[in-house]
């Protein structure tokens, strides 16, 4: 049984790195649900201990009463202590918080045991060398057995809290990844507006309608493909231009896109749909809310082994309301760049009085 707590300590170094930015795995000991769990653990442990100690049934209940009295009150004292220390413990890493919790528990157990033993000594009826059996008689045996049992139980409980916290975190991060994957797709707003454009063009300009359908198909093929796939820079620039054509059709003179690409290695790899969503954001947040012309500038250059791309759009004085999707889209691109190139890739944004700019940098990989 003592293996469990050791096991837990072995797990910790691996997590120490990311523990700094995570909230502690320790549950909220001030909540009634946790107090209930702690009392339950104490009672079940008392039953187990009493059963293990007993050879006959006659004294089982009085022994159980004694044991559970000790355990329940000790564990309530522990819970109170951890509740009070909670905000302080939260400041430490997983390893630090575990060690401190462990130490706090042992201190509480020692204190409680000592108090009980000395109570038994002080209040024993005069003339009787040995007080009644409700109090412990062997000081060191009482203290050490309490500490060992407490240490084992605490180890198990901490391990349990850690594992269940870990599981919950995995579930959460999985859900987040899935949402991001969905958000990487092209905006429904764009899809339906394009459909509307096509519906009109089929009557007035069938040739343009045909081109629009082809463009839209290309975009959706790219968007439905695996979003972690790397494509060539030429392909990504192509799909971005296709997207620009669609928007040009819809917004007409209101949209001006200025390209300035200087000697980019066309064969360099880039995650599919990296530049396109940046242009999409720029148009959605920067051009559409403007009553007149909006200019988006796309710039690309190479410096040494790195490629730098940036998209710059005017900041509308008044934004459309209820649209906060921008952050998620950028976060998504950052994650995919990181996945493909590790820490050598980066995404940064800059806002000044009049413009918003997103820049990405990534190494050339052929």
């Amino acid at each position, binding site marked *: 049984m003592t293996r469990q707590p050791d096991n837990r300590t072995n797990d910790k170094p691996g997590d120490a790195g990311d523990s700094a930015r995570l909230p502690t795995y320790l549950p909220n000991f001030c909540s009634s649900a946790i107090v209930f769990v702690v009392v339950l653990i104490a009672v079940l442990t008392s039953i187990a201990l009493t059963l293990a100690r007993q050879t006959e049934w006659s004294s089982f209940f009085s022994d159980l009463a004694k044991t559970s009295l000790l355990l329940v009150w000790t564990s309530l004292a522990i819970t109170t202590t951890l509740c009070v220390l909670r905000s302080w413990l939260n400041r430490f890493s997983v390893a630090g918080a575990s060690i401190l919790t462990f130490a706090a528990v042992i201190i509480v157990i020692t204190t409680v045991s000592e108090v009980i033993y000395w109570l038994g000594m002080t209040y024993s009826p005069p003339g009787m060398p040995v007080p009644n059996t409700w109090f412990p008689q062997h000081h060191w045996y009482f203290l050490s057995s309490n500490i060992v049992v407490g240490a084992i139980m605490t180890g198990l409980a901490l391990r349990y809290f850690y594992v269940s916290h870990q599981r919950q975190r995995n579930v959460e991060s999985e859900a987040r990844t899935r949402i991001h994957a969905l958000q990487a797709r092209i*905006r*429904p*707003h764009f*899809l*339906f*507006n394009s*459909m*509307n*454009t*096509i*519906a*009109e*063009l089929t*009557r*007035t300009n069938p040739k343009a309608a045909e081109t629009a359908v082809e463009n839209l198909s290309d975009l959706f093929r790219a968007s439905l493909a695996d979003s972690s796939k790397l494509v060539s820079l030429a392909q990504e620039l192509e799909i971005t231009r296709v997207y620009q054509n669609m928007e040009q*059709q*819809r*917004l*007409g003179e*209101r949209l001006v896109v200025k390209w300035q690409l200087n000697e980019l290695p066309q064969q360099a790899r880039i995650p599919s749909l990296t530049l396109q969503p940046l242009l999409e954001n720029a148009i959605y947040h920067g051009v*559409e*809310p*403007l*009553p007149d012309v909006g200019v988006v500038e796309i710039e690309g250059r190479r410096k040494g082994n790195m490629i730098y791309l940036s998209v710059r759009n005017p900041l*509308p004085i*008044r934004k*459309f*309301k*209820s649209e906060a999707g921008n952050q998620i889209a950028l976060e998504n691109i950052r994650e995919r760049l990181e996945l493909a190139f590790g820490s050598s890739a980066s995404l940064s944004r800059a806002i000044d009085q009049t413009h918003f700019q997103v820049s990405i940098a990534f190494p050339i990989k052929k």
Partner: protein
Amino acid sequence: MTTRVLIADDEALARSRLRRLLDELAEYEVIGEAASGSEALQISLTESPDIILLDIRMPDMDGIETARHLSALDKSPAVIFTTAFDSYAIDAFDSHAIGYLLKPVRREKLERALEFAARLVRPQIEALANDSERPATRSNICARRGEDLHLIPIEEILYFQADQKYITVRYLHGEDLIDEPLKELALEFADRFIRIHRNTLVALIWVERMEKTPCGQYQIWLRDCAEPLPVSRRHVTAVKACVKKCI
């Protein structure tokens, strides 16, 4: 007699599609096209259409705010919203029985919506603004000058001052009269304006300083405003606290 329809959408192709669909329906006549919310308001004032097809996402002022200003007109048109995709707004339309069309618009649905088109009343629009996750406050104040409408962006307004019947709106480039109760303005823009007098609301962002005159009166100075405004005794404490916090 034909029903007169105004189309408001910032995309030319979206407008021409609606116009084409409406041309196929004998009982409706398109009396104009607007490319923005303010243009839609202006045309509504001069042309008094019976129905307006109003896109939600438009530059300068979105459809829902436009509808709000429209409802204040003497002869306000019935409103049918159009949208490509806006899940919040659509939920709100459904729950308040407000007519809307999804783009690309189908002919049968357009016909049906036109048939049942109804004027929006104010509580409906307010509920709509709330439920569609847009702030319930307008971003412009609409002032009327005879046949002309003038939209004043909220952030350019220095103060509102109530006269006997009208309210003077003082903003960066001038003054206008509006016909709205000061009490409701105070409520709607509670986070931007503070009452300094029974008849005056000032914009917090324009407050420069507050001072006491030799005769014991308090007055407030606003940036870009040559004259100080008197602060009434009743409001001094509240204004002081607020000015301290905000400047």
